């Protein structure tokens, strides 16, 4: 038997409550042993405690959160209880779920260098390790870029590069892979696993590529861990129960490709960011139909989110036009028309939620009647009218965000970064609701299951352009993309 890098024994943890509100115990008698060379994927729905567990292992919790913790956590033979996070960086390195929270410098190479500078490594050694980190994650071309100008996936690659450089014995990745495109993920996994490494990966939706590797799965369920190796059959049931896997009995059909009325189209549109080195978005033709569900896939930094932001009028294109099909013919849309036409589900629900109760939140700016509020609360399984959104779980806040948009009559709903934060069940119910009211739904994803099951059409983007439209004739191409086999042509 290999030597254990991480040993968690009988861990229990409860967050401190507020006056009048106590939190239930988050973990109870949780046990985990990770051996050297093991890749352990810990699955769990949002709010199941994945981030908390990753932060307990790196000694950030309870240091920053308070709360009562009991049990034992041993990292590479050292008891972490009472240890400081900065003393553990040689033993365990971590990538946060939200890269914007973790990135602190203003240049990519400086970001990778920071922990090595803290540890006082030699200049020459740091320089070599920076090169290694950049090469391993395939982002050497971003070396001098300001991280603020990178895409979500690129930021994650940057933080991974920092781990490659320091190479601690244990890597802890919190939802790191969920925004990486399959080809990048395949390449990075190959590099990570080319050397013996011990990694714990927390995720909500395991990508298919993982199954090609020797990976052990666990699920965080009701405060404790169930390991797949203990009972593989129950494990799958548990995943479906937790909404982490699409229930094959409920979602089985591949959406048929239908001929539909057109909603809007883009003609010769271009947009470029003000920063040196950033790409230019150039779209010759792009069309959305009424009532369809379509997905956009493509490499990190290929312009998917930028296109989404242009479609909802948050970014103004440098040139080109977006037209709506109206009865009177084609009519051009400006950013304000687009604001009104489109709902954009921001990844962070708290940007859009701010009122003291669910009811007020749903009534804000619209004043729907009591019955409509009740109906929508039921439709989106919200916890109740008078519940303060700030104290609801992430999944419930996300559903509330969906409900708010549902009330506004929008022709088009865009769900960006559908991969992160939401369980498949929550995702599925949100887009199904939008679809059922007859609106067009566009979602951006790297998850093949979601794209295959829910979308009628798929657009593939590359280097700022739409390169392929896939419908019934060319789903093979999409499959190639998801298998990570479409090579970067840059």
């Amino acid at each position, binding site marked *: 038997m290999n030597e254990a890098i991480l040993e968690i024994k009988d861990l229990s943890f409860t967050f401190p409550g507020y006056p009048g509100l106590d939190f239930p115990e988050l973990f109870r008698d949780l046990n985990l042993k990770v051996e050297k060379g093991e890749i352990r994927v810990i699955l769990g729905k949002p709010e199941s405690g994945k981030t908390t567990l990753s*932060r307990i292992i790196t000694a*950030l919790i309870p240091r*920053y959160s308070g709360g009562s913790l009991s049990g034992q956590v041993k990292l590479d033979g050292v008891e972490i209880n009472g240890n*400081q*996070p*900065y*003393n553990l*960086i040689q033993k365990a*390195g*971590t990538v*946060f779920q*939200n890269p*914007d*929270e*973790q*990135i*602190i*410098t*203003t*240049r990519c*190479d*400086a970001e990778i*260098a*920071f*922990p*090595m*500078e*803290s*540890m*006082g490594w*030699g*200049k020459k050694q*740091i320089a070599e390790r*920076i090169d290694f980190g950049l090469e391993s994650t395939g982002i050497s071309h971003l070396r001098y870029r*300001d*991280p*603020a100008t990178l895409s979500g996936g690129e930021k994650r690659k940057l933080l991974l590069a*920092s781990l490659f450089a320091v190479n601690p014995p244990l890597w802890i990745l919190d939802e790191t892979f969920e925004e990486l495109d399959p080809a990048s993920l395949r390449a990075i996994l190959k590099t990570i696993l080319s050397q013996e490494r011990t990694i714990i990966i927390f995720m909500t939706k395991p990508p298919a590529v993982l199954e090609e590797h020797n990976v052990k799965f666990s699920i965080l369920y009701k405060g404790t861990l169930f390991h797949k190796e203990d009972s593989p059959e129950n494990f799958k049931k548990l995943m479906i129960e937790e909404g982490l896997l699409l229930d094959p009995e409920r979602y089985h059909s591949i959406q048929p490709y239908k001929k539909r009325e057109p909603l809007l189209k883009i003609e010769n549109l271009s947009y470029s960011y003000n920063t*040196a*080195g950033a790409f230019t978005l150039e779209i010759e033709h792009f069309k959305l139909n009424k009532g369809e569900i379509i997905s956009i896939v493509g490499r990190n930094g290929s312009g998917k989110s930028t296109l989404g932001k242009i479609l*909802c009028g*948050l970014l103004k294109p440098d040139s080109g036009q977006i037209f709506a099909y109206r009865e009177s013919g084609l009519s051009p849309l400006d950013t*304000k028309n687009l*604001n*009104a036409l*489109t*709902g*954009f589900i*921001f990844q962070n629900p*708290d*940007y*859009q*939620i*701010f*009122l003291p109760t669910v009811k007020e939140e749903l009534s*804000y*700016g619209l004043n729907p009647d009591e019955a409509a509020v009740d109906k929508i609360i039921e439709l989106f399984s919200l916890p109740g009218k008078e519940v303060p959104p*700030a104290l609801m779980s992430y999944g419930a806040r996300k559903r509330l965000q969906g409900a708010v*948009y549902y009330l*506004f009559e929008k022709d088009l709903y865009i769900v960006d970064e559908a991969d992160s934060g939401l369980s498949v069940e929550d995702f599925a119910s949100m887009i199904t609701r939008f679809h059922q009211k007859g609106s067009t739904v566009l979602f951006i994803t790297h998850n093949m299951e979601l794209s295959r099951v829910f979308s009628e059409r798929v657009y593939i983007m590359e280097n700022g352009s739409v390169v392929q439209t896939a419908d019934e004739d060319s789903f093979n191409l999409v499959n190639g993309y998801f298998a990570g086999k479409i090579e970067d042509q840059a």
Partner: protein
Amino acid sequence: MIANLYLQGNTPVHKFDPRIKLALLLFMTVSFFLTDSIPVTGGFLFFILLLVSLNGIKQVLRSIHSILPLLIFVAILTPPFHPSGKVFYAFHSLVLLSSDGIREALRLIIRFTGITSLFFLFFLTTEVDDLILSLMWFKIPFTATLVITIALRYIPHITHIYSNVTDAHKLRRGTDFEMSGGFRNRMKNLFPVLVSVLIQSIRAIPALAMALETKGLGFNAQRQSFRDINIFGSIILQLVIAFAIVLVVVLVTLL
């Protein structure tokens, strides 16, 4: 914490040694207070704006635009407190506008605009890393330089959150959401945005502390720096230019 002011570019101001730039920044700031002469401080302001336009860093002008309400405030409120000189407008015995009042308001406006554009010119053209290295070159300890730079970045950070939240609200409200229009309407729309911004910016604080500690801040070792300050072109030439500026400023201030 990801936001910062730096604007990638290749202008001579970008390439100027950050240590000399930092020293010049402090010197020029002080020199705005060394003299009361409007032509002299006006000349300084002209020089700075010339530098801005020659290098095409138009974001500096945006910063002046953002302090415009404050400048208007100064222009209206300063003259009544300096009633001496030739009186232009008085309400009964209260002098509201006089030659001294105008002069004083002009003086304050020039100083304020000058210093604002100076600082923005510096931060738009100097990388945060270079600023840290320069401060450390002046023997300021790393933790202190980090605190200074993070404090400076907190403003663009909040601006970044603010623009995200306004975007989010814009889509939520559709067409009736306007950040312009009447004062009342603006205030009504501003309140929910500010609540979200406040919550987000408070949440960012422990996250930043956690990020710094997972990157080894606090680790007991002599801190290393992975790179040195980039030097473009001749440092002697840059020093000569800097000295020439200092000399001219000192001479015009004294004469």
